[in-house]
Each structure stands twice: as C-alpha cells, then as structure tokens.
C-alpha cells in the first residue's frame, strides 16, 4: 500500500468512527446495516468475483448466520458477541459442504443449485421438526445489546462501533488473503481452470475453500444483521435477498474490496430513493437505477473509480512532464 492509500484509509476510518456522533440514531442504524451488507458482499465477492463461481443463493448463508445468532442468544443465552464465531464456524462448514458437490457443477448448473438453496431455505426454516429452535413461521425476537463498561453512548451507537470493528477485522483478513497466493490462485482458477490444474494448483480444494470462506463472511454478516434488526423470520430471507447481494457485488464492482462497500451503500439506500420517487411502482424505479448503473459503469462503481483515478493520475503526470 502506498502512503497516500494509508492516509486515505485512516481518514475514511476516522470518518466512519465520527459518523454516529454526527447523525441521528436512525441513520446510525442504516449505516450499521451498510456495514453488515458490506461484509456479506465481501463474502459473495470472494466466491463470485474472485473465484468466478456464481451464487444466486447467498441469502441462505446470511440466514443461517442470522439464525445461529438468534437461537444462541434466545435459547442458550449466549452474549451477542459470542455468537459471531459460532455463526462463522457453522457457515464455514455449511459453505464448504455445499461447495463439495458444487465442484462438479459449472456455470448455469451451479447457479441453479445455489438458486435452489436460496429458494428452499425459508421453507426449511419453517419446517415443523425444526420449529423448536427456529420458532417456525413466527421467527425469533432478540434483545438489543447495551453498551458495555458504562460507555456514554446508546445501544445503536454501540452496535455500530461493534459492527465497525468486526467489519474492519473481516476486511483486513480478506485483504491479506486476496492479495496473496490464495487470491492469485482464486483468480487464476476463475480465468483458466485447466491451466491452474496443470500448474499443480488443487482446484477442488481452492474452490470449496472459497465457498466455505465466502459463506463464513456472509454468515457473520447475517449474525450481525440479526442482532441489529433484533428479529429473524423466514420472510426476512427470501430469494430476493440473494438477488440483492448479487446486485450489490455487480454494482459495487466484482473482485474489488472497496466494491463491497459501494455495493452495500447501493443496496441499502437506492431502494429507499426509489420508494421516495414513486409509491405506485417503486420496483420500476429501482430497476431503472439498476440499468443506469450497469450502463454507465459496467465494471461497477469500483471499476469506474479506478478508471477515474487512473485518468487523474495520467493527467497529473502529463502536467508534470509539460512543466
């Protein structure tokens, strides 16, 4: 990382820390969700953006993470922070296991398999033999954690800071993972799996691992989301959630770490804007936004930002040369 980037990041982080002190609690809650979605999108990006395996069902892992947190808090009385590692582990395993058969499936077939997972998970959550834990169609209501150590902030602000901390940790891990050997292997598999196989990269392990890690991220996001919303129910995790995640990474920018954040901002705020514009057909407005973004930035917001920066840099260099 260059010095400039480090400074930029520090400024951003500072801004993120200052945010809850400047805006209303409701906005804090919204930005809390943005962080949650950013983690989820980071997860999907590992799988779909970096590794090229399309998932239309990541909402399922988000749901599993959310239910892990809710059940552990509600039934086992675990504190909220202790549910995150459990949710992470459960989703890692679930993702890895789902990734094993998915290894045999390519492209469309994988898309169908994941789509099927996304569609059928809500009915599994409602399944009457699981009702004891999942609360069936009624879902589970959980309590919002209070700030610890007598901090002079309210619950929303505390939860935001907690989520921010988790987000930063998750992103640092992702950044370390993706820029190194593992990241290169994932991209190489995406771009040419025959060649990587020949080069001795174990595609199968990397691909299922990508599935597991991806599910883990999304699961942690689900747990954080459940704690923020204080409620889980099958209706919260319909197939449109999965599609929303996909929209998020495409609009944000595939295979890009900042892209996950741009995408999260998009999926959090643009539907509200659409609703403001038209009560009659909010989805139509949302659809038009989608088209607009894809047309103007086919490589996502991250791609557009990258291009704009490159242009600025080139211009700066030209100026230097001319003077």
């Amino acid at each position, binding site marked *: 990382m260059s010095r400039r980037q480090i400074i930029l990041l520090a400024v951003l982080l500072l801004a993120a820390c200052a945010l809850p002190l400047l805006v209303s609690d409701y906005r804090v809650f919204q930005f809390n969700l943005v962080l949650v979605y950013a983690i989820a999108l980071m997860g999907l990006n590992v799988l*779909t953006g970096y590794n090229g395996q*399309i998932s239309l069902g990541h909402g399922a892992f988000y749901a599993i993470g959310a239910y892990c947190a809710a059940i552990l808090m509600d039934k086992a009385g675990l504190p909220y922070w202790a549910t995150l590692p459990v949710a992470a582990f459960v989703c890692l395993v679930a993702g890895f296991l789902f990734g094993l*058969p998915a290894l*045999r*499936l*390519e492209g*469309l*077939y994988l*898309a*169908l*398999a994941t*789509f*099927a997972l996304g*569609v*059928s998970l809500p*009915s*599994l959550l*409602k*399944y*009457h033999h699981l009702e004891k834990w999942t609360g069936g169609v009624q879902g589970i209501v959980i309590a919002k954690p209070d700030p610890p150590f007598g901090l002079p902030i309210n619950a929303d602000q505390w939860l935001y800071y907690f989520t921010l901390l988790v987000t930063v940790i998750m992103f640092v891990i992702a950044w370390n993972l993706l820029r190194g050997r593992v990241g290169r292997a994932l991209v190489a598999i995406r771009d040419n799996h025959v060649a990587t196989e020949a080069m001795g990269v174990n595609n199968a392990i990397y691909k299922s691992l990508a599935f597991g890690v991806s599910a883990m991220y999304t699961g942690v996001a689900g747990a954080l989301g459940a704690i923020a919303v204080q409620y889980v129910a099958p209706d919260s995790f319909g197939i449109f959630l999965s*599609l929303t995640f*996909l*929209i998020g*990474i*495409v*609009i944000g920018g*595939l295979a890009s770490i900042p892209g996950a954040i741009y995408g999260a901002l998009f999926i959090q705020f643009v539907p509200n804007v659409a609703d403001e514009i038209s009560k*009659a*057909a*909010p*989805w*139509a407005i*949302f*659809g*038009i936004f*989608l*088209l607009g973004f*894809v*047309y103007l930035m*086919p*490589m996502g917001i991250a791609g557009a930002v990258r291009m704009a920066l490159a242009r600025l840099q080139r211009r700066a260099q030209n100026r230097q040369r001319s003077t």
Partner: protein
Amino acid sequence: MEALLHQVLAGLATGGIYASLALALVMIYQATHLVNFAQGELAMFATYFAWTLINAGVPYWPAFFATVAFAFVLGVVIERVVIRPVENAPVLAVVVVFIALLVILNSVTGWIYSYTIKTFPSPFPTGGVFGTKLLSPHELGAIGVTLVVLVLLYLFFRFTPLGLAMRAAAQNPDSARLVGIRVGWMLALGWGLAAAIGAVAGMMVAPIVFLDPNMMGGILLYAFAAALVGGVDNPWGAVLGGFMVGVLENVLGAFVIGNELKLAVALALIIGVLVVKPSGFFGKVFVTRV
C-alpha cells in the same frame, strides 16, 4: 394406486406449465447462452396484452396470434435497446440487467393492471376428458400446444436456413460473422422467439394459475430446473424435464415427504442428478478434437 395415478396426472398438468416456460428459457439460451431471469415476467406481460385485447372484444385466436406477434416484437426491441448496451459487459452485469427487467415489468404491470387476480379464458372446451376429471381439457390442450410449439421449433431450427444461422450464431459468433450471419440480429431474433414462446406459455398458464403480476414468479424456478434437468441446449429435454419435475414434485409431496419440503427435496434430487450427470439427462456432451 389410484391416488398415485391422480397425483401423476396432476403432476403432468403442472409439468406442462413448467415445460412451456422451460422451452422459452432453452430458446433464449440457445440464442444467447444466457438464462433470462426476466423470461417469466415477459410472458406475464404479454399475457396481460392478450387479456386487454380479449377484454376489448377481440376473439380468442386473433388475440392469441396478435399477442405472439407483440411478444416477438417486444423481445426484439428489448434485445436491441436494453441488452445491446451491455453486450460486452461481464456476464453478471447482464444478469443484473435481467433482474432489472424483471422488477420493472413486474412493477409496471402491477401499476397498470393492479395486483388482483384476473381470469384468462381458455380456448378449449370445459368438462372432463377420457372419463377422468383429473386432467381438464385445458390442461391437456396446454400440453398439446406446448408440444406443437416444440415441433414447430424443431422444424424451424432443423430445416430452415434462418434456424441454422441462429444456431451457428449462438455457437460460434466469430465464425458466424465470417460466413456473413448478422449475429446481432440473430440474438435479437432469439429474444423475439423466446418472448413469443413465453407469450404462448403465459396464455396457456394463465387459465390455470390465474393472471396476476406475480404469476410467473414461482414457476420460473421450476422451469429453470426443468430446463437444466433436460439439458439446457435441448428443447425436447426441457419439455420432458418439465413433466419430470411436475410429477416428481407431486409424488414426493403427496406420498413421501409431505408438502412442506417438497420443493427443497425435489431440488436436492435434481441437483444430485446434475452432480452425477452434469449435462442433464438429455443434454449432449461434445468432444471436440483440436
């Protein structure tokens, strides 16, 4: 035993629904190598067009063919106007465009026509067939129409130069261009044909499930599964896949695992099959020598 037969027949009836939409999916896949998520909503939208005509007093069959023509033009226009600009964008960007189309069509239709269900007429007589009341004449007729469309498609692709050109353009666009095929137009035609087939599917489905803007939402997944089970490049497979999914789902739901999880289990089975046989039951496997 009789109960089983009844479930199989009911499964064939719903399978016919899946088959007709699966056919449209396969169609567009053949032309563009993409699965169009908005296919169901396009079909729904076209069916509303037919409904409007019929309500305005146009007799059924003229309305039917006018709708097929309308859907064809709509498909071509959408390809030219909406899909064209993202031709060179990553596949997932195109998928997002499909989702955008889906929500726009759904929302606009709901806005124009409201979400209350509407009846859609059937061109077939009422009453029972073959002494059983389990398969209505419309359901049987709809299966027949699907098969007719299938045969027409087969003839078109197999025996007309245009059909051949479309297959060539889908398979190898560069080579197709080199023999003078206007690949862009072939894609648009593919969209048009898929939309037209979708319109037929919509008009056959609507009398069974009733016409509403969310009519195709549930069906799309089944059609998607049917198309893949049958082999996504094979129209015959798609139709057979549709019937298989319909029957499987009903029999599982009624006798094996109950209705609650029938979708999940049916899908798991399908995925299981695909894991073992990745190109579907009837998909072709090509060995290309280099």
